[in-house]
């Protein structure tokens, strides 16, 4: 009987496509918007993710997210190093600087200062120059997207110079790096140089990056650091989620995306529901005939639900596929934030399931109450 339901469904091409369109529309909008939202969230944590290696970030107690810099005194590094369970700890500078280019224009940049001795937190994707070149005087490495922003249309060339805070900087390498939320160029340099490139402040230490000793859990070391120094210590993952939580709670981003997703859900439900109901009404005599011939209400219910599920699966597949295609196609064209983790697919699937269920409810009621004697009426 489910086969008959399927044949009935695809037999009416216009209605079938109408219902599928409603689901595709909703799935596309939900998946695309949710993926864009996830992409934006990914931008906010890009510098935590890119600083591979250390598992513990130590910062001022009031820091709420990675860009919320509240500088520490340099002596805090030694206090962290003195905490039992800390294998090693290094300084890490993060700030905003203004680069004065050769032709006299200015560009805001994100300045990252790595520990002079170890270069912990260095970028992993250097494709021109070498990380070791950062040890040269005035040396800086820039991210690929930043290079294109500062010198648009020009070929990659190391040896370029520019100024930050009246100090000469020499480009010694170019690296790939995750985009940041502000989309500023990212400049990597040694810590000792970074504090000269940045506007002068009394305190300059942004973070202390630390690694737990072998066999000691990071969370335990964080607890000890907080107890002993009064600073805030977070694991790599904790810092990522603290940053995401900040954007979720303190900005309108999730609400705006949520509204769009909700509208997609509503419109998709309306289109699919209305078309599905019209489809059912159009076939009501057929359903009545099936009931007259001995089809039980339970079977009729399964038939309608199977039609809804079939439409849902097709609409979900096309909608999510289009959203993924959208993400892929725009990745090379524009710098659009787009990240589609499995959770987006699961949420979209749940939404589509709810849509087809809601869409079929009216139809189910209609076919269940239909009098089989309807077939005797002309």
């Amino acid at each position: 009987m489910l086969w008959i339901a399927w044949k009935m469904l695809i037999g009416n091409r216009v209605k079938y496509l109408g219902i599928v369109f409603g689901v595709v529309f909703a799935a596309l909008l939900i998946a695309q918007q949710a993926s864009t939202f996830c992409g934006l969230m990914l931008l906010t944590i890009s510098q935590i993710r890119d600083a591979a290696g250390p598992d513990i970030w130590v910062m001022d107690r009031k820091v709420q997210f990675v860009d919320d810099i509240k500088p520490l005194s340099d002596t805090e590094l030694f206090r962290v190093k003195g905490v039992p369970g800390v294998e090693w700890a290094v300084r890490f500078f993060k700030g905003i600087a203004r680069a004065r280019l050769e032709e006299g224009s200015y560009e805001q940049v994100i300045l990252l200062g790595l520990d002079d001795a170890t270069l912990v937190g260095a970028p992993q994707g250097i494709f021109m120059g070498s990380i070791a070149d950062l040890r040269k005087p005035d040396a800086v490495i820039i991210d690929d997207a930043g290079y294109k922003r500062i010198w648009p249309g020009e070929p990659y060339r190391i040896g370029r110079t520019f100024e930050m805070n009246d100090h000469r900087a020499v480009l010694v390498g170019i690296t790939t790096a995750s985009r940041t939320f502000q989309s500023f160029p990212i400049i990597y340099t040694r810590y000792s140089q970074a504090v000269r490139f940045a506007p002068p402040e009394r305190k300059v230490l942004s973070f202390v990056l630390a690694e737990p000793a072998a066999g000691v859990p990071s969370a335990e070391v964080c607890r000890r650091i907080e107890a002993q120094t009064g600073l805030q210590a977070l694991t790599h993952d904790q810092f990522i989620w603290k940053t995401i939580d900040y954007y979720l709670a303190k900005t309108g981003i999730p609400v705006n995306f949520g509204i769009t997703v909700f509208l997609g859900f509503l419109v998709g439900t309306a289109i699919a529901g209305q078309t599905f109901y019209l489809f059912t009404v159009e076939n009501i005599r057929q359903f009545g005939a099936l009931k007259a011939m001995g089809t039980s209400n339970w079977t009729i219910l399964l038939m309608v639900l199977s039609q809804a599920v079939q439409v849902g699966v097709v609409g979900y597949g096309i909608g999510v596929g289009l959203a993924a295609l959208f993400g892929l196609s725009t990745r090379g064209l524009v710098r659009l934030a787009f990240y589609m983790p499995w959770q987006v697919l699961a949420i979209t699937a749940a939404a589509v399931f709810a849509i087809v269920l809601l869409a079929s409810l009216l139809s189910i009621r209609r076919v269940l109450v239909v009098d089989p004697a309807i077939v005797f009426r002309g």
Partner: protein
Amino acid sequence: MQKPESSDAAATGDLAVRVRGVTKEFGSGGSLTRALRGVDLDVPYGEMLMLVGPSGCGKTTLVSIVAGTLQPTAGEVTVLGLDLVAMGNGRKVRFRRDNVGFVFQAFNLLPALSAAENAAVPLLIAGWRRADAIEVASEILETLGLGDRLTNLPSELSGGQQQRVAIARALVHEPRILVCDEPTSALDAENGRITMELIERIAVQPGRAVIVVTHDARVYSFADRIASMEDGRIVSIEAGPHNSTDAAVPR
């Protein structure tokens, strides 16, 4: 297919259908409509009974009750030895599935299914495998002269051909009661005659009964008896050409 639940009971009497004092009311209060007003009717096995009368006289209501698709307000309805009034909804669904074949005025074929698939629907409802059901349905369609139209959709068939598919669908599961509602009203004279000949040849058999609701006087000649209805009552039952020795039997 499951064994029809009427098998044992049906053997106990000569009547396929026994209706006594059946009334049917629709609505309530000021909008109350009495569609049937105490109808008595017997249909023996092996008979084709025609229900005739003006529109709104209660023919369709009566046949709906006999077919088990409508519950009477009062009265007794025994079909194939089973009390339909006392029967629960679930049993009534199984009763229709196993014992009743329907031929509708508007054919009510599923437009997305081919002729063979449409004819196989009652077997699919009874739980047959699709391939087996379509094979049996195809055999019946071939006997009805539609062997070359098995894969055609209803929209690709003429009205007469569609009605033959509907007849095949009504008979494919070998029902013991065949209910035909205006089976010829959508057909021209020639196709109407062919349709009635098919029903008579295939359905009017010992152990079966056929009830035909019709306005079409051209097909009265196929009836064993003709019951005339007016205003919710059977006003006369006359012998048809197939039973010309019987006298008129008014109730």
